[in-house]
């Protein structure tokens, strides 16, 4: 198994885990973490893309690395915004669920989840 393939399998695993978490976890904080895992998988894929260029004789392609760094910054900003919203929601509602309807009491719903 070449290094490129190992990275590819890892990227696919991270994307799969992230997708699973994003869909099945009802708690927003876990959804945010799942989104970050999903994002890491995609960034890893971008990383291999650079190596892929190296295999075909272009030399190690630096463009995907620049793209990954930009992507990481964007994902960081997204996470920060999501956490800020979640904190606001928790302060206002006493719980942080996305379900519609009457908010449950803070006791039955642990902070952040």
């Amino acid at each position: 198994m070449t290094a490129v393939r190992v990275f590819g399998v890892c990227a696919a695993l991270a994307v799969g885990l992230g997708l699973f978490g994003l869909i099945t976890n009802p708690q927003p904080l876990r959804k945010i973490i799942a989104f970050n895992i999903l994002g890491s998988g995609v960034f890893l894929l971008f990383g291999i893309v650079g190596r892929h260029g190296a295999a075909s004789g272009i030399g190690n392609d630096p463009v995907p690395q620049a793209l990954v760094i930009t992507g990481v910054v964007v994902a960081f900003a997204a996470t920060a915004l999501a956490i800020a919203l979640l904190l606001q929601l928790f302060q206002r509602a006493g719980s942080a669920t996305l379900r519609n309807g009457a908010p449950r009491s803070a006791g039955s719903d642990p902070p952040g989840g």
Partner: protein
Amino acid sequence: MPSPSPTLDATTSTGFLLVLSIVVPVAGVLLAFVLGDRYARLVAFAVIPLGLAVTVAILVVLPQSDGPIVYLLGAWPPPLGIALRADGLSAVMLAATAAVICTVAVFAAADFSVATGNTRAPFAFWILLLATWAALSTIFLAGDLFSLYVALELLTFAAVPLVSLEGRTETLRAAMRYLLFALFGSVLYLLGTALLYALHGTLDVVLLSRGVSAEPAGLIAAALMTTGLLAKTALFPLHLWLPPAHAGAPSAASAILSGLVVKGSFFVIVRLWFNVMPGLPSSTAMQLLAALGAAAIVLGSIVALCQERLKLLIAYSTVAQIGYLFLMFPLALGAGKLESGGALAGGLLQTISHATAKAAMFMSAGSIYATLGQDRIAGLCGIGRRLPISVLAFALGGLALMGLPPGAGYLAKELLLQAAAERGQWWWALALQTGGFFTGAYVVLVLTYAMAPATEPMRVNKTVPRIAELAALALALCSLLLGLVPWSAYLPIPNGDELERLRLGAFLKMLIPLLGGAVLAVLLGRLELPIRGSPSWKAMLAAISPIRRASLASGALVERCDNVLRQWPTACICLLSLAAAFAAAMRIAF
């Protein structure tokens, strides 16, 4: 229509205008941030005329230049450098954005001033307004797929706080759902971008358009990017975030969100299909896209008719109108590739028509909400006397959406019907006409209540400044007069002169959707129309009551379906299965 020139590797002489149209609003954001909440509105009102001037300059310069306007950042040519390009499509969208932003700024001037006591919301609003503008300009001008990704994310980051500006629990919840679903969509888009880069070693739109072929990885990339963007555009069945977000936001923000923000990701879909991979789509994939659009029209409209609140009705109308935009894709597909012809022009005109009309409708709903302190449709009786300008703006916006000549909606509908006739796809023509009927239905429903005499003396919560009402009216009129603009300089309109003539027959044709809409409103509207008196009316109501009960039951069924589809897990599974369906549909033809 400027022809796409083959060599795009040089900055054109007027290229600096493209940089200005992004830099001016960004400079406004930074300046407002530094100067603090006291000056945010002042900065916005200084920057908006400048931005408008730059947009007008681009509109003037583009028809004279040979091909698109190009600016290469740092004079680095693609694939290594980043290019900004403005073609006819970008120019039209820039113009619509500038028009909506300006009128919304006038509308919001009184609501979001420091004098209201609360300084935080006005400060955030003006900064986010300019940030939305900057992000949209970048989307319309970006020449490579990764810049488009960054611009889309900036747009989301500007739009999400607009939803929760008032900080109420339910709007925070709506903003959170919107953010998470939009992030899900953009990750899928990024995944597709990575695959395309792996295949072609470039993300530049023009360079990719020369190289894209129907490899399996390319098809998967296209499917992932399209579904990711559909999630951000809220095409049915991926609309879980739209109704609560658009209905809960302050009205000025709703106008921006519904009029402009969803158009950003829609424009990227257009770029992707028409500019990056025009040869890739199969007819099955395009029919699937338009079928989702048709489903959005029918379901969105029926659920809109079930709503009790005005802003939720308008939000569901947006769900339906987004479906309208996707009908152009199969109609543009000819001889194995998407053609930039009448169908594309029709789709773009529909986009700007909806942008202006829907923003006007949300603004007039905002004036009504502020006056009454609530927006229950059943409580609207008498508002026609109290706020005639706002109700007129709502009516004109609704008529423009239905396609009253000489509106852009009318021109769009004619172009799309013509394309449907040329391609022999009568079923999409049927969907177009049905959409007109449904739009007629909810406009008639709201107007009947607004024009009915008040049953009890109205309690006025707050007086709305006349200028805010006039801003909504101006935008509605703008939407209604857009058809008179010589679009053929920017959009690929076949034999444009023939269409732009005003005919009496076109006005008469409008009566059919209005009448059909009235019938639908009586049948499907959950609220009884407030028409009293005439015994013949009562006799007719009694006669149709079994039909009405049956149609109301089916309406309730549709609403229940909508509730299921708007659950988080259902929507996410829909998203993934749509991606798979697209990849499979594109595979079929090859």
